[in-house]
């Protein structure tokens, strides 16, 4: 019996010890009316050999085209050691470290992770991970609302159900944030009557329009969210926005790419006093693209907001002999203690990805991250320059961007992408539908993985594609 170690003899002995004649008797408390019939939609079991053959076939049905897509998930080189270590059974098959003395490996790594993330973000504290960047932003919004004394009588999402009559909390959300991050945040927070207020971007720079923000000055907003870089890859004037927000009694929630923080000003140093909550997706730190995950969300904040922070937190302490050791701490914030009054419902988070990120950062070090980030910058600028030199292609924004950029075309982007894919190039993400004002717009990215030949291949392919008729290659809807 695959994965079941019982011999006939053992089964007989065990049934005798229990005092029943057969296994079926153990289910006799289940009403007969509820017993399941046969499971027709589930195929017969396969041997490992058969399942390997099937999965190899399925793997071959996915493309290996050159990838110039970013938009929140980036193809980076992951040192081989990272997953060789993560896949060790002791990490891979452990549970959440409830028994601290038997989980020092996982616990110490989380402590090291918290240390590295606070170093990268220049914040005071970090939790042990959220599900992903988008849901981390939603939790950051909830934190900001809980911390806003003007809105709620006291902390704790627990009150949510009972305060329906309170005025809704509001958050300023620039539209140049990742569109799906904005959707996810809405899904997660709207049950608690929180309103997300759009802030338009400047059509020339793609960055948040300070003049538009100024229109909200004086209003009761719990926080303003800033992406650095924003969804378009453009850089925001983070100092000015941070200071404006603080002057107007709003918290600042930063949404950042952790790899780029190795070279960009860390949120803890934005403006006069720094951002208050920092979140983002940890994927660039050791997670393969993998069709969208598992990645992980990170969430850091200032000391003052610590008790609002959801999720696990690890602290260093001592054992009976006074030797250092690590435990889960401040658990009274969490659902298994506080239940309906917890900071969040999160329980299982993305532990193994945190292990990967910690090892990834340890191996690359600050210098390795900086060189990687700078290579992304250089490749993207090289690609942008060459693509935008082609007839019929222009760069939409005129201010500094990092490793993503937006191109505008005269022809339908969807058709161009299809034609590029046929040439083995995944050319980027069509953002025309999300941002109609940008026309036929394409978001493109070139990480350190894209060699000079790769870039040349894209340029050549696009040139060829633009030179030919594209009618009907892709339904435009």
């Amino acid at each position, binding site marked *: 019996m695959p994965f079941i170690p019982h011999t006939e003899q053992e089964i007989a002995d065990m049934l005798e010890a229990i005092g029943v004649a057969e296994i079926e008797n153990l289910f006799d408390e289940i009403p007969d009316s509820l017993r399941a019939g046969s499971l027709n939609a589930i195929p017969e079991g396969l041997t490992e050999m058969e399942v390997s053959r099937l999965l190899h076939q399925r793997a071959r049905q996915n493309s290996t085209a050159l*990838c110039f897509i970013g938009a929140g998930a980036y193809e980076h080189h992951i040192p081989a050691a990272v997953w060789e270590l993560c896949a060790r059974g002791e990490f891979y098959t*452990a549970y959440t470290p409830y028994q601290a003395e038997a989980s020092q490996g996982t616990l110490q790594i989380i402590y090291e992770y918290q240390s590295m993330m606070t170093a990268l973000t220049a914040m005071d504290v970090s939790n042990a991970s959220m599900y992903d960047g988008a849901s981390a932003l939603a939790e950051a919004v909830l934190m900001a609302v809980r911390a806003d004394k003007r809105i709620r009588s006291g902390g704790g999402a627990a009150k949510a159900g009972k305060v329906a009559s309170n005025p809704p909390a509001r958050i300023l959300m620039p539209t140049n944030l990742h569109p799906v991050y904005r959707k996810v945040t809405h899904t997660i927070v709207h049950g608690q009557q929180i309103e997300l207020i759009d802030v338009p971007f400047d059509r020339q720079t793609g960055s948040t329009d300070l003049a538009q923000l100024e229109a909200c000055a004086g209003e009761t907003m719990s926080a303003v969210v800033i992406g650095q870089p924003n969804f378009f890859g453009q850089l925001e004037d983070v100092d000015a926005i941070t200071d404006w927000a603080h002057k107007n009694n709003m918290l600042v929630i930063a949404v950042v790419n952790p790899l780029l923080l190795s070279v960009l000003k860390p949120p803890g140093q934005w403006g006069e006093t720094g951002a208050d909550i920092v979140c983002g997706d940890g994927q660039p730190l050791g997670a393969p693209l993998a069709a969208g995950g598992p990645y992980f969300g990170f969430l850091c904040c200032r000391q003052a907001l610590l008790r609002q922070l959801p999720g696990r937190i690890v602290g260093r302490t001592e054992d009976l002999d006074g030797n250092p050791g690590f435990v889960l701490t401040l658990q009274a914030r969490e659902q298994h203690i506080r239940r309906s009054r917890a900071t969040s419902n999160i329980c299982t988070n993305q532990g193994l990805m945190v292990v990967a990120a910690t090892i990834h950062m340890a191996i690359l070090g600050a210098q390795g991250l900086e060189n990687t980030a700078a290579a992304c910058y250089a490749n993207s600028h090289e690609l942008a320059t060459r693509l935008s030199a082609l007839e019929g292609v222009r760069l939409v924004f005129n201010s500094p961007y990092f490793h993503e950029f937006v191109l505008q075309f005269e022809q339908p982007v969807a058709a161009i992408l299809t034609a590029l894919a046929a040439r083995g190039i995944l050319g980027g993400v069509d953002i025309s539908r999300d941002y109609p004002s940008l026309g036929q717009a394409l978001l493109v990215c070139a990480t350190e993985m894209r060699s000079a030949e790769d870039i040349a291949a894209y340029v050549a392919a696009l040139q060829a594609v633009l030179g030919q008729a594209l009618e009907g290659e892709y339904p435009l809807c």
Partner: protein
Amino acid sequence: MLIYEHSAEGRKGAPQAPRQKAPLTGIPAHLLRPESAALPQVSELQAVRHYTRLSQQNFSIDTQFYPLGSCTMKYNPRVCHTLAMLPGFSGIHPLSPATQQQGFLACMAELQLMLAEITGMAAFSLAPMAGAQGEFAGVAMIKTYHQARGDAMRREMLIPDAAHGTNPASSVMCGFSVKEIPTLANGDVDIDALTAAVGPQTAGLMLTNPSTLGVFERNIESIAKIVHDAGGLLYYDGANLNAILGKTRPGDMGFDVIHTNLHKTFSTPHGGGGPGSGAVGVAKRLQAFLPLPVVTKDKDTYRYLTEVDCPQSIGRLSAFMGNPGVLLRAYIYMRLLGAEGMERVAEFATLNANYMQAEAKRRGFDLGIDNRRASHEFIITLKQVAKTCHVSAMDFAKRLLDMGFHAPTTYFPMLIAECLLIEPTETESKEVLDAFMAALEQILHEAHTRPQLLKEAPQTLPVKRLDEVKAARQLDLRYK
């Protein structure tokens, strides 16, 4: 020793990164980092040695019996990992066109179908990234359902007092208030209390069945009727699905929504705290509200359903598609098992738990709930020993670590004092169960004869008993 303590200023040249730092010309100075982040500076060997040795300080399924109740710590077949890590899967960009990921999407479509079949639901979404997010999605669907019918007064979620903490927390995140329903001493829900509690304000009832007390809710049909008659919906917390795979189906019991913990029942590894997956299934009437994305098949081509296809969806829960790597592992596991293998899961998980329960009784332990079939887990209460010997369930747990076993879940469910919730899973052999029961019996004996052995445990691990109070009082949350 921390990785930071192996660091030396000026150590550099990781061969994994580009050799040079390209100039960042064009970025205004005030947007740049003034000095490098304080990350450790170590060689690859130092990192490998450090993290290899740290790994050895963990207990895990691959090294120890890990009977953590409610967590279903079964064997994670290795092939699920190696196949999920094939470059053909790990290299897929989530935003690449559907035509470029047909092999992956085919697996997801089949996984949705298999989950629907085994649970008896009409349709599944794989979007939620853990059980708690599945609960959130399920409760949000219940809310949206009532709202869509104009039934806006249903503001209250009913939850038995034995429930996991995520149930009330998820309900509150969705804007519900929570009403607790008491549990009888025999482990069943108090039907009278339930009957009294339901009303026009009732949005639904969240139930784990078998419950966290390790017994099957025998009155589930009556419960379903009471809630449904009052206009509420039934939510199934799938954490304990392992106990009933192929034997009985939540959909047939009357549940309208369900989440499954693929990292429990379907054997994806827990990774020291995730990633998981809390795929949600629904009855027909809730299908329109499923969270996105969902995989569908148009003619011969798989693709994701979007907001355009599903305008009533509760929306998205993650930037892309939940945790595909986890979903792939669950898919592979289910294909290995097949229908017959799934039924065996329930049978042997149940056999193991009932055997241990019988043995526990024989060896003089008090059961949390007596004279009932255990499901895939059961409870020992140490209330009497605690009183007599002044040792706690936690002391028992720590002493077990010294004997080479991970401890069962302690102090959950909260209803039963000084409890150990023991879940062996189907993949453990009688040899292991017997060794564990012998250890428990020895500890019981020690509690009477040498209680300090329990109180000073563990003695054989990398650290001795850790001071949690100090950790919370003198917060040290990062290396400085």
